[in-house]
């Protein structure tokens, strides 16, 4: 019977192609707009490291002003970065499988003279564990070892793009790269790696360009490297660089990998003990407020998906609803115009339910055609979004979103079609048989 209903629906669409095209276009427009924004939201809110996100934790410790908490809105909130002194202290823990303090800086990189002029490169200072902890993919070599963290050794890992820029993409292991006034030996070159959102440092540009070079964290002191990201403070931070390192200013991100609940409890105990020790020394006078935020909680906490993106999703879904509601009137007119034919079908044995289903199938056929067209429109829309984000996010439809688009189209067809279908099936057939 379904095949028969589809055949009748197809004939009905062909009967008035202009009207049918208008109805299909209405659905397509609604689906195109809503799928574009729903997909955008879906991509912005997806898990950037699904294989490990549940065991990666962002560390927060509350070193803030005892008189006034970190957040006016949420008294339980802890500062979203840590101080240099706390980061280096907790890095001594032996509990985590991997751990890394890190921050972003901008340092001068000196390419060979024939390749170009010095430029300010985005450099991430981090520990050796950064690479295995975040499953960073390497094309050549690997990250440095933990011993290189301690010295620190002048070693560097290049991003794929930087290796292209400095060495034409060749295997550059063992070659030297001058950063500021030091030469660093290349020990690893990454595959193209662009986590989006940049989960390990979202409050310094969730969707900004990826880091270009990675060097050991402990160069911060000998090279007096200052952060290129956000710094927050509540207390005078002194004048010298060393004063900065010992200050209550927060500018370091701290990540740990804790593979089991027991490991997590042990590490939390470690943090609590550390803070209690600091409290005994007169620091960290706020109530104990250490936090271990799993990756997705951390991204949510940091608003990795902009509120505007959520608003656009709501608006686009409302737009789809308006499109569907507008279609109710058009479909009602279209269906009622065929009341005499429905009278005949009723006389020949069609029940009300059969007539209702016939018209719902017609609405759903329109919806599917409109949905497919809408998906094509959304591909264009997503291309525009990709360009708006300057290629940082690759807005592409996946099968889940295509299925969601068709699902939304079917739902729209139902919203638009139920009332007209109910009206036409409720007509008394006897009234229309003489009108044929």
């Amino acid at each position: 019977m379904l095949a028969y209903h589809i055949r009748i629906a197809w004939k009905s669409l062909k009967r008035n192609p202009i009207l049918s095209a208008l109805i299909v276009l209405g659905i397509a427009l609604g689906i195109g707009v809503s799928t574009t924004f729903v997909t955008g939201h879906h991509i912005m809110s997806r898990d950037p490291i699904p294989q490990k996100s549940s065991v990666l934790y962002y560390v927060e410790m509350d070193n803030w002003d005892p008189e006034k908490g970190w957040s006016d809105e949420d008294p339980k909130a802890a500062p979203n970065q840590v101080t240099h002194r706390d980061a280096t202290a907790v890095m001594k823990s032996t509990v985590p499988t991997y751990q890394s303090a890190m921050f972003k800086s901008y340092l001068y990189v000196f390419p060979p003279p024939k390749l170009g002029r010095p430029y300010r490169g985005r450099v991430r200072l981090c520990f050796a564990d950064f690479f295995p902890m975040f499953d960073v993919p390497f094309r050549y070599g690997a990250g440095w070892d933990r011993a290189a963290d301690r010295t620190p050794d002048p070693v560097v890992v290049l991003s794929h793009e930087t290796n292209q820029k400095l060495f034409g993409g060749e295997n550059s292991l063992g070659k030297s790269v001058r950063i500021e006034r030091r030469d660093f030996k290349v020990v690893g070159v990454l595959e193209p790696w662009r986590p989006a959102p940049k989960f390990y440092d979202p409050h310094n540009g969730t969707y900004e360009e990826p880091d270009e070079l990675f060097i050991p964290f402990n160069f911060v002191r000998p090279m007096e490297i200052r952060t290129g990201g956000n710094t927050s403070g509540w207390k005078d931070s002194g004048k010298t660089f060393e004063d900065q390192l010992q200050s209550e200013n927060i500018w370091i991100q701290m990540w740990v990998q804790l593979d089991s609940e027991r490991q997590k409890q042990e590490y939390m105990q470690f943090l609590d003990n550390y803070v209690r020790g600091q409290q005994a020394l007169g620091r960290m006078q706020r109530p104990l407020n250490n936090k271990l935020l799993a990756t997705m909680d951390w991204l949510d906490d940091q608003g990795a998906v902009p509120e505007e993106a959520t608003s656009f999703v709501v608006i686009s879904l409302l737009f789809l609803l308006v499109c569907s509601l507008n279609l109710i009137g058009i479909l009602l007119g279209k269906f009622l115009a065929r009341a005499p034919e429905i009278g005949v079908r009723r006389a020949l044995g069609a029940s009300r339910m059969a007539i209702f289903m016939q018209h719902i199938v017609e609405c759903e056929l329109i919806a599917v055609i409109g949905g497919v067209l809408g998906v094509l429109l959304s591909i264009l829309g997503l291309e525009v979004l990709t360009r708006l984000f300057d290629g940082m996010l690759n807005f592409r439809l996946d099968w889940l979103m295509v299925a969601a688009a068709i699902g939304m189209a079917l739902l729209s067809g139902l919203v638009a079609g139920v009332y007209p279908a109910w009206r036409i099936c409720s007509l008394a057939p006897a009234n229309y048989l003489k009108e044929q």
Partner: protein
Amino acid sequence: MLKMEKVNKVYRTDMVETHALNSFDLEVKSGEFVSVMGPSGCGKTTFLNIAGLLDTFDAGHYSLDGADVSRLRDGEMSRIRNEKIGFIFQTFNLIPDLNVIDNVDVPLRYRKVNRQERKRAIEEALMTVGLMSRASHYPSQLSGGQQQRVAIARALVGKPKLILADEPTGNLDSLMAREILDLLETINREGTTIIMVTHDPELAARARRQIHLLDGRLIDLQPDQVIPLYRARKSFPASI
């Protein structure tokens, strides 16, 4: 085959009540060919609609093929229409988008008959009305007489026990009208009960039994009595 007892049907508006059928009694035996005559507005179409389960009635009893069909749900009425009743209309009522085969196919679709059985039944019905050669034509490509034959094939295809024909020759010339009557007579001879509404006394006379309606009732007509073409039957409700 069909038995109506004291059937009443009243159409109401804010101001007027119209008694379309008024204590209407009729019994039609299986295999009869009955013509129904009467002036415009006498209740012929209302009678056919109720007989065909296309309309409800306010009071009385109606049994069809031995079963009480006075108060049934829509699904059950639809099933009975589909299986036991065939309709033939004055304006043919073919579906313009469908060709001859698909038009005749409609009742079988709602009966959920399988493809092979449908094909066989459609061919048989089209052979009966002599339109196999026009099977893939659309209604707009057929003459009025041919369209009515298609409508008859559609009424016959489900092998109904009762055919209700509402002025089946009203839109045809006299030659075509006689052909259609010949066809109906043939169908009746094969055992199908036919109730036909007509204004044409000559055609009515070909039925084995003629009944006359006036003011929503059956009347006994004397040989020299003439039925007025139209009589107003509106009455005002007592409250007005």
